[in-house]
């Protein structure tokens, strides 16, 4: 993303990433701690960033293409941090993220999120993205790229919220 300063990136095959659920927690905890050290309250900031990042990673864990590289990059843009997930996608994955992108533009996103959060039965597959957009006030961009790739970017301004 323009003007951002890359801080840290983790890259691996999507099969490796999706082979172990704990990767979501471990990657989110590690990256959040790494990039939060020079924020006003590093522990509080890391806790918030880890929570948001984990939701994005859990979404990517469940919805991705069958093969190719997976990367998670965190960049800085002043008071904001930008998380970028770069993942392989197939038609089904693309449709999933297109639906998500469309839902994220709806009015009363908080209402949609809270309905999804407390809905009976199977959880709404977009729940994590909705949470990041509503509770963490992230600006989320989902872009299909050449070669069956997809980029999901979330810009989070947690500095004020964490101070």
């Amino acid at each position, binding site marked *: 993303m323009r003007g951002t300063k890359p801080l840290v990136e983790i890259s691996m095959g999507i099969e490796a990433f999706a082979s*172990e*659920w*704990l990767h*979501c*927690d471990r990657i989110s*905890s590690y990256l959040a701690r790494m990039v939060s*050290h*020079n924020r*006003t*309250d*590093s*522990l*509080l900031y890391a*806790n*918030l960033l*880890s*929570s948001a990042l*984990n*939701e994005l990673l*859990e979404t990517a864990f469940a919805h991705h293409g069958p093969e190719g590289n997976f990367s998670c990059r965190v960049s800085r843009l002043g008071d904001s941090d930008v998380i970028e997930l770069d993942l392989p996608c197939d038609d089904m994955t693309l449709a999933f993220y297109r639906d998500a992108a469309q839902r994220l533009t709806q009015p009363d996103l908080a209402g949609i999120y*809270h309905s999804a*959060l*407390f809905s*009976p039965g199977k*959880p709404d597959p977009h*729940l*994590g993205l909705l*949470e990041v957009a509503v*509770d963490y006030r992230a600006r989320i961009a989902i872009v299909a790229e050449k070669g069956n790739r997809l980029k999901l970017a979330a810009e989070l301004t947690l500095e004020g*919220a*964490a101070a």
Partner: protein
Amino acid sequence: MSIDRSYQASFNENNQEFVIAGKLRPQSEDEMRPLAEALTNSLAQVRGTFYLNVKRLARLNNVAFRAITNLVSQVCDTRPELKIEVVTSSVMGWSTRKFLPLAERLPNVTVNEYDNDFYPGQSFLEEGGFIPILRNQTKLTWRHERHLLPRHGLKPGMTVADICCGIGDFAVLVQKELKPSHILALDHSRTSLDYARKVAAEFGITDIEYVYGDASEMVIEDNQFDFVTCRHSLQIFDRPELILKELYRICKPGGRVYITNEKNSHCLGEPRGESIQWTYTEVAKLFADFKMDVELGPKSRRYLADAGFEDILVDSFMVTNGDGDPQDFANMIQAWENVFAGEMARDRGDSPEFIARFRQGFQDQIYAALHPKGYAGWPIWAASARKPT
């Protein structure tokens, strides 16, 4: 598939409180079954108000959140008379916001953020009025501690945590003079932390992380620091053993924990020794009434031993009016009088006669401190111990 059981759950029947702490990020609802069963069993035992304490739940994903809230919803449907209070903390940042919609949906659920109730009697010491006292105290004790800290094992290049850092001036002095590689300084007072960050910025210090947190339940991983300090703080918590347990936990095996505490009734001065002694004996009683033990200093060895430490080293030193400018000492006593007699004694409901006599002892110590032939002293116990490898 690995299941990460990094959460702790417990039920206290007497308080009707179910506490979940740690991290809950399961992949499937099946992994939540043991916790759900424990929560269901606990709910079945209570009447009136049930407390779901998530103050120290650091991480929670939606799988776990939905499992917990589904269960709470079911109970609310079948037992409308039961009140459920979800207890969150601002230390975690996300939890109040996450649980509040539950209270909006279910009339018998409330969500409360309880940060001011961590420690009884703390409000006197956490507000801005105490900053001048802390600043002056550190200035006076540093003359002694700068020599004591290396003796207690602090070496350049170490990673240090200063827990209950207050206004952060001790961490700044340690950083400047004793050159650790990094300091994490934690406190529960936002006023103090704001001040600490401002001072650090003014001095261009970037190697200290000032963080908000509860010393008795820190969101810091185990075995992180070579040297952990906690000064003048165990004595103002009603359960110091909880803090020590945390200091032990975050210290690396082989690292040391360093604590300082007072025995306030041993503050002294001459001339007018009798009046001074009476007042400080009353100071100790006053703090005891607010569940703080300002007589803890000489008990340091016992506390450290009981917490599982080894190689315990206990020193004591006396801060006196001879440590530099006697006016600094006098200013500290005046600040004590303002808080102890001006606020705490008044809030305890002491009579004007008592408060007048109580104040006189402080004034007599100031007299002794500024008297050309006088002597005034404030004794401190500095103790450290090693975490076994």
